[in-house]
Structure formats: structure tokens, C-alpha cells
């Protein structure tokens, strides 16, 4: 018990004295996850919006597939990205394995279905509400996409935050493709796993506390934005 208290005190000290190693790990984690979420937004939002607005054969199958991909096991994603980026893989020539870029790619694969599926859901609901009005105003189906994306912006930020939550807390895929190399690909989750196995609980606890802090902040933002979106909907109802 005394040992735990001592580790906890050390963890607090690491956080508040600005331990350079700890904050470098936090910074890399944030950089990787933020980049991954931005790329996922660029891919997932138009795909989700297109699935919401367009009508074509096989659309339902694509939606089911996209929803299924939301629950794709991260270690399997890690394995697939590893095989793709490994020296004998199709993208091996790029030599991206064990780099932050490889971790971003893995997170993009994990987060894009979440962003696309949530975007599809939000935009489809809004499209249903706006459909006749936009047609009456002479807005074509294609031209309605940016209108819908803009008007669903609060809900879409919520989708991005949900994606960020998934990315920042991810461990299985990034440890496979990143390799957990010190000062290169070591992020919060992989460091926690490593340091716990080594018995260095102070650093693991400090990173855990920061990770929880980020998760709480993201969830608070999601709740606040969801509440705002709900209020907007209720006002309209």
C-alpha cells in the first residue's frame, strides 16, 4: 500500500514537474491521433455523406459493411497494416513500418469507419428533414451535400471526437505497426503496457492519469455538443 502511494506521488511529480520524457510521449500520442482523425475526417465524412444522400444498388450492403467495420478488432487491423507495410508487403518499398506514419495509418483504418458511419447516420436524418425544402429551393442532390455537412456540424464534431477517443486509447494496432520504439513510436498506451510489465508504475500511472484526463475531456465535449445538437432538434420539433 505504501509502495503504491509512493508510486502515485512519483506519478504526480512527473506530471507537474514537466518530465520531458513523459510529455514527449503525450505529445507524440496527440500528434498521431489528431493526424489520424483529420485524415479519417477527410475520407469518412464525404463517404458517409455520399452514402446518406446517394441512392445506388448495393448501398445497403455498404452501410452494413461500414457499420461492421466500426467493431473491427484493432489487433487484426494492426496485423493487416503490418502485412501491407512490411518489407515483402505491397507498400514495403515506402519503409513506413515502425514509424509514426504507420501508426497513423493503422488509426486511420480504425477511425474512418466510425466517422463515416456516424456521418452517414447524422446526414441521412438531416437529409430526410431538409429533402423537400432543398428541392423546393432548387438545390440538387449533389449540391445538398455541403449544405447538410455544414448544418450537421455540431453532430459531426461529436463524431470526430468519438473517433479521437478510439484513436488515442488504441494500443493493439499501434504496438504492432509502431513497435513501441523509445523516442520514435512510443505513445501513451504502449508505454503504459511496457512500463507496467517492467514494474515502473510511476510513469505508467502518470500516463494513465493523463489518458483518463483526455478521455474525460473528450467525453465532456461530446456530451456538451450532443446536448446542443439535441436542443437544436427539440427546438425544431
Amino acid at each position, binding site marked *: 500500500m505504501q509502495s503504491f502511494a509512493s508510486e502515485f506521488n512519483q506519478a504526480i511529480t512527473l506530471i507537474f514537474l514537466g518530465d520531458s520524457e513523459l510529455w514527449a510521449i503525450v505529445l507524440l500520442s496527440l500528434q498521431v491521433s489528431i493526424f489520424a482523425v483529420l485524415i479519417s475526417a477527410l475520407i469518412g465524412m464525404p463517404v458517409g455523406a455520399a452514402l446518406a444522400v446517394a441512392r445506388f444498388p448495393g448501398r445497403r450492403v455498404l452501410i452494413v459493411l461500414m457499420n461492421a467495420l466500426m467493431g473491427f478488432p484493432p489487433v487484426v487491423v494492426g496485423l493487416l497494416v503490418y502485412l501491407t507495410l512490411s518489407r515483402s508487403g505491397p507498400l514495403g518499398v515506402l519503409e513506413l513500418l515502425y514509424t509514426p506514419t504507420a501508426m497513423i495509418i493503422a488509426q486511420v483504418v480504425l477511425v474512418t469507419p466510425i466517422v463515416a458511419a456516424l456521418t452517414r447516420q447524422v446526414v441521412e436524418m438531416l437529409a430526410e*428533414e*431538409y429533402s*423537400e*425544402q432543398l*428541392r*423546393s*429551393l*432548387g*438545390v440538387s442532390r449533389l449540391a445538398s451535400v455541403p*449544405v447538410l455537412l455544414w*448544418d*450537421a456540424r*455540431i453532430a459531426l464534431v461529436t463524431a470526430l471526437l468519438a473517433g479521437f477517443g478510439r484513436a488515442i486509447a488504441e494500443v493493439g494496432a499501434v504496438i504492432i505497426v509502431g513497435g513501441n520504439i523509445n523516442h520514435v513510436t512510443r505513445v501513451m498506451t504502449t508505454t503504459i503496457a511496457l512500463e507496467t510489465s517492467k514494474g515502473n508504475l510511476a510513469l505508467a500511472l502518470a500516463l494513465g492519469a493523463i489518458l483518463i484526463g483526455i478521455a474525460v475531456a473528450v467525453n465532456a465535449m461530446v456530451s456538451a455538443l450532443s446536448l446542443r445538437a439535441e436542443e*437544436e432538434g427539440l*427546438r*425544431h420539433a
Partner: protein
Amino acid sequence: MRDLISEMAGCLSVDELQITRKGQALLNVPHLSLDGPGPTLILGPNGAGKSLLLRCLHGLIVPERGQVRQDGALLNADHKARQGMVFQQPVLLRRSVAANLDFVLKRQGLTRTGRKSRIEELLAEGGLEGKARQSARSLSGGEAQRLAILRALALNPETLFLDEPTSALDPSATQMIERMVQRASARGVRIVMVTHDIGQARRLATDVVMMQGGHVVEHGVAQQVLDTPKSLASRRYLAGGLVT
């Protein structure tokens, strides 16, 4: 005679219009010609096909059979661009009041200065001065419907369709909407409006279309239809009887 009427300028007409669902005719109008100066009010009980007819006239619904014509020609994109529609529940963009109007004006290619002055004009027209920056979703029911009408008027429509725009409003809000409709009509906008309110039809209409069960049961000069209805369905509806 029908063809002659259909070819008159500003005339809106339907021929052999039919919409069915699960084998049941929801709308069956052999012929209807709205060629008067308007406002035309479409009256009838729930399920009479009033809103469906309005959507067909505006091209939002393509009927299984029959044609909708404007100025003698089949309804096309050019005609639709010269029409506006206001729905029973106003559908406002999740933006400010001014941005809702700006959305339409921008699509018309107006300059920033032109849009700004037109927005001010429109807000004054709808009594929404001082609410330009307010979220459109925070407006009251009456204000929201006025904004929806202003947005439709921003299109400079030749014809404005209104689908029960005052059904959920109190008398004061209804009066403001009716004044807007009258002013638009006086400026030459052809008004076609659906209502349940017989009093409203008396106040606004120059001609009245009575509908029941997907059929037009009577169409004529407002005073004649409202005071001396010819059809039994119209008489029962206007007498306040239960019509199904």
C-alpha cells in the same frame, strides 16, 4: 376549351392527375386549371389530397399518371425555379435568420452588398428586424413561419405555394402571415394555399378549390363556393359537418 385555358399566361393546370398507393387512389384529378389572379385556397378535410396536389403542382412529386402544366407547357426546371413553397412545418437551416435568407440570395448570384440590402428589406417585410443574427431554430412558431415565407419570397417567385402555413399558429401570428400573403399577392405573386380554415379562405381567396377523398369536388369564385356550394361534400364541410 381546356387547351385554351392552359395556354393562358400564368396558368397552372393539371390533367388526368393520378396518384395511388397500395391500389388506393390518393389523388385523382381529371382536370384543374388555376388561371385566375389568385390567391387560390384549397380547402378540404384531412386526407383530401390537398398537400399532395400542392406538391404535384410544385413538382416535388411526380404523379404516376397525368401532367402538370404551366403556361401551357409541361412543368419544367425553369418553371420550378420561378416557384416557391412554404411547408406546414417550417424547415429552417441550422443557421442564423440572416443566413437562411442569404443561402437563397447567394444561389441567385447577388453580390455581398446586394444580398445585405435585400436581407434588410426582407426582414422588414416579415417584421423580423433585429433578429438577423439570432439562430433560426430559436424563433417562435410564427416567426419561423414568417422566415420560411421570406426565404421563399427571396426567390422572387411568380407562384408561391403555401401548405397550411398557419395551422399551428395563434390568431395574432396567423394575421401577420395573412398580411404577408396579401402583400405578396398584391405585388403580383400568384398564391396557391392549402388551409383548413374556412374563415381564412373568406379573408384571402379569390377562388377556392374544394377537395375530398383525392378528388376536386368544386372549384370556383371564393364567394360563390363558400356561400352557395354546389356539391354535397362542400356543403357538409362548410357547414362544419364531419366529412371523411
